[in-house]
């Protein structure tokens, strides 16, 4: 914190500012119109992920042949802005290009104890490293570009303690969907969530990122996990992670970051990981979820007029009948990817279930690695062959069908099982209907063409 004047919010210094093409152009325009410059290009880092097609004709540049005119203009604008202001851009021709929240950690840019912002609500992902990371609007992107600072009110703290261990077939995605279902899509508003407990401590960094990523779906701007040996092992040797004597110094500092054991939170809840099951959403916000073996809730059983009306509206949009069993519901599209579940371990899980099986005719399965690095690692392990031989499409990295800005989308009325983070109306394409689930549950749907409990394959 730089300072705080009485009656004003605190001035928070930003250690790392991540940028992408969708939420930054108007901020650069603002800089130009005020005659300002970028204060710390060395603390800014950009990529192109939302608008970029995942199709290619072999060369990186050829991906642009599949872009519409507006996307192309947005991409070119990002390149121009980064060039003009001296900001590092992992652009379309970089082997490191990918979703901003996948490449930040992967390149070692995301570090414990740092403040990280991006004009993107899923910036919460980086909290998995014990960083304070949150999404901002485009005006604030301009503030950070010009001053490297943000005005911030102090958030409240909310401890999510997860005891026990997840059972086989139940993943980090199921945990976060169960949590949002429990506290609601506004349950985290005004809070920073801190995930603690045995289940969290035993998670890999990929899993922790999945959990923190969806903190925003409970309304919390940030979610975080105290850094530990798992965090340090992940970071060691990454491109932008400290090295040599700096590494030792950083480690000493990072080890002092976790809250003490008697830390007091404004609110706390405890979940038992062992009781969780694979989850699937049925509605039009991420809190509307049930166990994959569960049923669509009946609005008649819901108290509260507004809540009942919301559920009725959701079910009408989704075309689902109250009381219907979710398992067995036909699926047209399966999407595996995104900043929530587009990392190597996600692709490994999905491919382990798909291996040796065929995707039924009429079901479209799209697998989009979160970054160029994830793609190359997956290919080195032969995962792409498993997907392609089963009948899936293996694409270039990007946000793709999670936000449906780049041409990858579901058609009106279609049902998709998706490893993404939002099932809002039209999110994956106008009129499309999304069931959010884990990579395992998505893979099970891919090989059966129906909503399926992945544990049936284990």
């Amino acid at each position: 914190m730089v300072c705080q004047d009485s009656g004003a919010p605190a001035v928070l210094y930003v250690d790392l500012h991540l940028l992408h093409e969708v939420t930054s152009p108007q901020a650069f325009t603002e800089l130009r119109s005020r005659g300002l410059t970028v204060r710390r290009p060395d603390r800014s880092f950009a990529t192109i992920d939302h608008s970029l097609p995942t199709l290619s004709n072999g060369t990186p540049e050829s991906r642009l042949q599949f872009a519409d005119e507006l996307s192309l203009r947005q991409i070119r604008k990002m390149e121009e802005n980064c060039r003009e202001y001296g900001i590092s851009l992992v652009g379309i021709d970089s082997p490191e290009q990918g979703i901003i929240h996948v490449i930040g950690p992967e390149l070692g840019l995301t570090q414990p104890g740092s403040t990280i912002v991006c004009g993107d609500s899923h910036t919460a992902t980086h909290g998995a490293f014990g960083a304070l990371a949150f999404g901002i609007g485009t005006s604030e992107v301009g503030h950070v570009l010009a001053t490297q600072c943000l005005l911030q009110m102090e958030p409240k703290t909310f401890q999510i303690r997860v005891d026990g261990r997840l059972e086989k077939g139940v993943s980090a995605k199921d945990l976060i969907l169960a949590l949002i279902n429990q506290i609601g899509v506004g349950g985290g508003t005004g809070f920073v969530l801190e995930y603690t407990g045995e289940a969290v401590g035993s998670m890999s960094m990929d899993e922790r990122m999945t959990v923190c990523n969806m903190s925003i779906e409970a309304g919390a701007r940030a979610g975080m996990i105290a850094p530990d040996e798992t965090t340090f092992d992940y970071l060691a040797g990454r491109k932008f992670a400290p090295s040599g004597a700096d590494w030792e110094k950083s480690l000493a500092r990072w080890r002092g970051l976790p809250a003490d054991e008697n830390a007091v939170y404004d609110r706390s809840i405890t979940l038992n990981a062992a009781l969780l099951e694979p989850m699937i959403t049925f509605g039009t916000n991420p809190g509307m979820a049930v166990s994959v073996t569960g049923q669509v809730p009946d609005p008649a059983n819901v108290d509260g007029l507004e809540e009942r009306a919301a559920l009725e509206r959701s079910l009408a949009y989704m075309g689902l009948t109250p009381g219907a069993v979710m398992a067995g519901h036909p699926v047209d599209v399966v999407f595996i990817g995104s900043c929530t579940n587009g990392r190597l371990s996600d692709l490994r899980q999905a491919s382990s279930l798909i291996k040796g099986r065929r995707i039924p005719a009429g079901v479209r399965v799209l697998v989009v690695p979160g970054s160029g690095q994830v793609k190359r690692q997956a290919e080195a392990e032969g995962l792409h062959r498993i997907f392609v031989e089963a009948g899936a499409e293996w694409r270039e990295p990007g946000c793709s069908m999670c936000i449906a800005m780049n041409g990858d989308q579901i058609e009106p009325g279609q049902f998709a099982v998706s490893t993404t983070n939002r099932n809002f109306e039209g999110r994956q394409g106008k009129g499309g209907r999304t069931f959010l689930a884990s990579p395992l549950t998505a893979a099970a749907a891919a090989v059966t063409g129906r909503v399926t409990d992945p544990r049936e394959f284990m």
Partner: protein
Amino acid sequence: MERFPEKFASNVAVLPAGNIDTDQIIPARFLKATDKVGLGGNLFADWRYLEDGSPDPKFVLNRPEYRTAQILLAGDNFGSGSSREHAPWALVGFGFKAVISTSFADIFRGNALKNRLLPVVVTRGFHAFLNEQYLNSPRKQLEIDLTRQKVVASGGRSEEFHIDPFSKTCLLTGVDELGYLLNLQDRIALFERAN
């Protein structure tokens, strides 16, 4: 930045749904714009237009009486989801000056204030009263008094609302946050040298 009016009155467009996310306020396909203007036409696009692209006459914002509405009354947790500032740009582009709800998503709230769109949080009881009073009542006026932090319904019933003093001052004086931060450059430089 232009100043926010000390008080103003308008009729009220009512969207009773709760958890209206920013993907509904403005769908992602409209985020390819590289400027802020002209987004008002895409506000609530998927609720507002029929398959053939023509306005759905049943949707509240398409009714001629609401074309000049400056106040939107919406359900709980308004503006959840994506951080897109295109949401307040679209609301302001349509002509809204204030949104009233029982709660707002954090990022949306911050984005709204930076665009002179006032997020007004009222109690559940007062919200229900406003819903009843203003649903399908296009001629009834509602007053929002920022100076006194009060919402005054036609007929006189009113409720005070909270706004942090800094945001209130910014709105009423037309000072923007960037200007405030730029004045702190020396202290920021000191901080950078010390860390």
